[in-house]
């Protein structure tokens, strides 16, 4: 990343300042919801719950933005740690089982029989990448069809290859558009209207900062898309 591409510090600070009124709003609504200053009727509770859910969505958007700015601001301070990708994936996939079921989807991790070598990357950030890819694969399914998501890893000569395959509607956009900052595809807007289109952008920054590659291919002869990334072995 070139230095003139970096995010100014004032912008990062401004985003932090936006978080404050949202926190205050959440605190007020949670206080009302707790009924400690007066009882609420069912309709009032329902409305406050809806308000809280929207606050949560807004906080998620801001956190994504903070992560983006942070990656751009501090890209050069990227950590290189030994990470056991298999263990990380197993735990993330396990955590998504319930969410997948609620979305009429299944998710499996095809754990390799042989132990896969650790990779060199920033643990916290690569977790964000895997989490983001898993969450996308589950969410961007075709309406009315049962979703199927398969995650696997494979050891290559000098790197480890990560794959996540879904049976959704695939990617209609051309080239690498989906990895652009703030890019929102039609499907993304329909599925997750409050997102800001930085998940794949951050993922690309993270993988490339680790010396790896990230790309996707629409599945040949069947529905869906497969995302791949590679990371260097430690």
């Amino acid at each position, binding site marked *: 990343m070139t230095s003139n591409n970096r995010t100014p510090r004032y912008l990062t600070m401004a985003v932090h300042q936006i*978080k404050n009124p949202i*926190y205050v709003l959440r*605190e*007020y609504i949670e*206080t009302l919801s707790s009924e400690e200053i007066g009882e609420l009727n069912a309709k009032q509770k329902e409305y406050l719950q809806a308000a809280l859910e929207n606050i949560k969505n807004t906080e998620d958007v801001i*956190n994504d933005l903070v992560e983006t700015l*942070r990656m751009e601001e501090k890209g050069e301070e990227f950590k290189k740690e030994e990470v056991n990708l298999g263990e990380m994936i197993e735990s993330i996939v396990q955590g998504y089982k319930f969410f997948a079921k609620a979305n009429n989807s299944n998710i499996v991790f095809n754990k390799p029989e042989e132990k896969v070598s650790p990779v060199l990357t920033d643990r916290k950030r690569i977790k964000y990448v895997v989490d983001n890819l898993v969450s996308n694969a589950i969410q961007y399914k075709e309406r009315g069809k049962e979703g199927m998501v398969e995650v696997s890893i494979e050891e290559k000569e000098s790197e480890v290859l990560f794959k996540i395959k879904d049976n959704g509607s695939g990617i209609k956009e051309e080239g690498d558009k989906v990895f652009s900052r703030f890019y929102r595809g039609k499907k993304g807007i329909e599925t997750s209207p409050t997102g800001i289109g930085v998940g794949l952008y951050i993922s690309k920054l993270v993988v490339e900062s680790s010396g790896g590659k990230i790309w996707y291919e629409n599945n040949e002869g069947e529905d869906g898309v497969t995302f791949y990334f590679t990371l260097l072995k430690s």
Partner: protein
Amino acid sequence: MSEDKKKLLMIEDDSFLRKLYRDRFKKEGFLFTEAISGEEGVNKIYQELPDVVLLNVLLPVKGGFELLREIKDDSKVKDIPVIILTNLGQEEDIEEGKECGATSYLVKANVKFSDVVEKVKEVLEE
């Protein structure tokens, strides 16, 4: 009766948050006092000698970390526990807070009022 009550100083520039915390900490049995800038905060620490301070970081005139460094350098007030309550949640911010002498560090996005009260009580018991 008020002598049994613990005095909490909140240094926070957001008036809505101060109001909510004022109401709720009073309900929890605290004596609540407040400051809206780092500079006013330092003055209140010396004037009122609170039992515990709840400190924001991004504050007008004087920031929270600067305030913390200042009071931790003065034996008159250095033992007053300070809990940081901020939106800055990056590792380096937390490290800086600890280095400046904060007793505890809470990130607003990750806590509810009940967590803050619990932390304040825990710190007072130490």
